[in-house]
């Protein structure tokens, strides 16, 4: 037939054989890491467009990289949010506290105090600076590495630790994996272990806020790996269809457990450029530059608040540690990557900036680090009074069956009675009913 190719004869045709491309990261364990292929524009290079710009006018921002903090540790260009020194110091303090908290909780897991922990080392700015650019009652739908938002919003760290220990003071009643926090009081949505589900939920919350003529906006965070989930694309579609007041933050930390960003499409384009096909504003920002993160979120929040539409922000950063306490990155990536990462460390960069503008010094830095460590240590001791995982100081058995429904149906009541019967056999010394 002339209108379609002939079926190639086995072994004897002259057409090229089709080849499947399976992405491969540039560096594996033992390799020298060299990031000179990354295009890192100088700080202050990009203009700051009007917040009401039509997405088609600002498409270039999805391929660029918004940077404020330069190699000279000064703030540069139109994206400089011009924050006062007190705010900058608060930002540094929040990030330092997050890092101290992560260190302590990681150790706690290794000491057997809990089952699991996830650090956000190197990514602190993407939650701390972003949260500071939002109003405290804007609703956030985080993923699992945004503990910085709770720190910014003043959630008590002892309550975070109670949750991580799943103890009798855990506000989530010991039901959730460590770090899957929830706090309605802090406009912080319940974290799910299923990836990207929070994206359409954030859009729905923002739609509800718009339906009601409210003034609060929503923001959500997800990793670059989970942008491959359908939920992310549904969220982008709904966000643009209804012009929802929402900010979608893609934390591109290069790694999804052991899969590098190429498995989410990074070999072909940027994650910010996903916005273009939806007709959404997109920004790509240096995620290790706290001032750039703040400025990008502020731009997007102003845009959403003015009914000018949603924004997708790609935070270009690096996951400096393993995915979680259950992960060992030395098995799949070069140990040099962290040191060679060209965008540096967000805490170090902000510290140097504050010193460069004469608003900070090494003595104060040392005092702050000590204070953070002491605060976390004191909170840990306080939380341990309420128990650590697996040592019996958990919520009463009956709570396992509560809140499945608003009211306890007969079948769960029967199962609760069984669990309590079993308890008396399994742990006869227990006093608890």
């Amino acid at each position, binding site marked *: 037939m002339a209108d379609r190719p002939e079926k190639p004869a086995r072994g004897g045709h002259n057409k090229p054989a089709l080849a499947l491309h399976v992405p491969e990261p540039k560096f594996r364990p033992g390799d020298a890491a060299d990031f000179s292929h990354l295009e890192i524009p100088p700080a202050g290079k990009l203009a700051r467009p009007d917040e009401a710009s039509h997405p088609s006018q600002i498409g270039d921002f999805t391929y660029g990289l918004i940077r404020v903090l330069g190699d000279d540790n000064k703030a540069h260009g139109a994206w400089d949010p011009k924050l006062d020194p007190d705010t900058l110091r608060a930002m540094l303090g929040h990030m330092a506290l997050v890092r101290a908290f992560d260190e302590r909780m990681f150790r706690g897991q290794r000491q057997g105090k809990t089952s699991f922990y996830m650090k956000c080392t190197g990514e602190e700015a993407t939650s701390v600076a972003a949260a500071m650019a939002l109003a405290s009652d804007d609703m956030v739908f985080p993923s699992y590495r945004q503990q910085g938002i709770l720190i910014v919003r003043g959630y008590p760290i002892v309550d975070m630790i109670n949750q991580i220990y799943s103890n009798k003071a855990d506000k989530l009643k010991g039901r959730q994996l460590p770090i899957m926090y929830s706090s309605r009081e802090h406009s912080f*949505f*319940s974290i799910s272990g299923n990836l990207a589900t929070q994206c*359409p939920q954030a859009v*729905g919350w923002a739609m509800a806020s718009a339906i009601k003529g409210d003034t609060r906006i929503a923001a959500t965070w997800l990793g670059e790996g989970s942008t491959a989930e359908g939920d992310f694309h549904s969220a982008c*579609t709904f966000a643009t269809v209804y012009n929802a007041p929402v900010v979608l933050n893609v934390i591109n930390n290069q790694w999804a457990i052991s899969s590098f960003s190429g498995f989410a499409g990074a070999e072909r384009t940027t994650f910010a450029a996903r916005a273009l096909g939806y007709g959404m504003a997109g920004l790509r920002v240096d995620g290790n530059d706290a001032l750039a993160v703040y400025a990008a979120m502020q731009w997007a929040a102003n845009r959403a608040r003015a009914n000018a539409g949603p924004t997708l922000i790609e935070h270009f950063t690096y996951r400096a540690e393993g995915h979680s306490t259950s992960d060992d990155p030395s098995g799949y990536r070069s140990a040099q990557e962290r040191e060679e990462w060209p965008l540096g460390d967000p805490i170090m960069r902000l510290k140097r900036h504050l010193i460069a503008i004469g608003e900070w010094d090494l003595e104060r830095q040392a005092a702050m680090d000590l204070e953070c460590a002491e605060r976390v240590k004191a909170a840990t001791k306080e939380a341990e009074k309420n128990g650590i995982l697996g040592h019996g100081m958990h919520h009463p058995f009956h709570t396992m069956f509560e809140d*499945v429904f608003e009211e306890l149906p007969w079948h769960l009541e029967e199962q609760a009675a069984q669990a309590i019967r079993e308890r008396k056999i399994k742990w006869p010394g227990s006093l608890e009913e």
Partner: protein
Amino acid sequence: MSAGMKKPRAAVTADTERRLNMIEAINEALDIMLARDPDVIVMGEDVGYFGGVFRCTAGLQEKHGKTRVFDTPISECGIIGVAVGMGAYGLRPVPEIQFADYIYPGLDQLISEAARLRYRSACDYIAPLTVRSPFGGGIFGGQTHSQSPEAIFTHVSGIKTVIPSTPYDAKGLLIAAIEDNDPVIFFEPKRIYNGPFSGYYDKPVEPWKRHPDSVVPEGYYRIPLGKARIVREGEAMTVLAYGTMVHVAEAVCIAKGIDAEILDLRTLIPLDIEAIEASVRKTGRCMIVHEATRTSGFGAELSALVTERCFYHLEAPVERVTGFDTPYPHSLEWAYFPGPVRIGEAIDKLLKD
């Protein structure tokens, strides 16, 4: 066997009473709730200006406005996902999934999110959504417009499953579902949208107006979730059914002259176990009828519950009448459908000694 004659049903009420089909009853329930509660939102594919492919939302956008009743992108994941977010805000969304067969892309949002939100957040957040969806076969819909996936949802902790079988129940149960603070799957048996169905597919379609339960009062009323309805009392055997199969089972019992007690379960979770136990203990025999596939269907759960709780009252093994474990076929729909022949055989077996 001791099968007596059926008890006479309530006489058909006077013509002056207001009669609705199931579509009109559902439309009225939505209309009432949109008017009563400013937090109720109706959304879904084609539900806005057009009023839904089955007309259940006809006229609602015009009456309540475009931000209360609106069309959505074709994305069940997105529809359920944004509904969860709206619920977290404080709204009471009533999303429609155009056919139950299309609900699968939204399952993660339903199962991992809506159903688990109250529990995992320790009541910080709830998901008070009511997901309406036409389900079941008998309309030559083929395998993608005929399925009955209720057992997927009854297997998931944290979600309620409601299936009405009459216009009166559809309105009262839907209002109760919308007011409920837990996520509810509200499956509407589309074969009986326009009239009850006897299962004798070659007979002319009966309109609802001749059925006593098409008398639907105006205004607000609710039927509590978790309460079964005794369709008719009887002594010879108990029939457990819901949706379309309530009518099919009843028609077969009438045709065969069986004094069956028919329970319309109305909600599968929470289940009215008291009504089931009371009836089976009285009759000693139990037949379960559903249109869904057999293996791991809700009938398996019902059979296990009846056996565990009423074993010493049973005079015969529990019978299950179900669809076959195949995809829902198109041309062979009436060979697949658990109609009068399959139900009749089960009745004979159940009553043979």
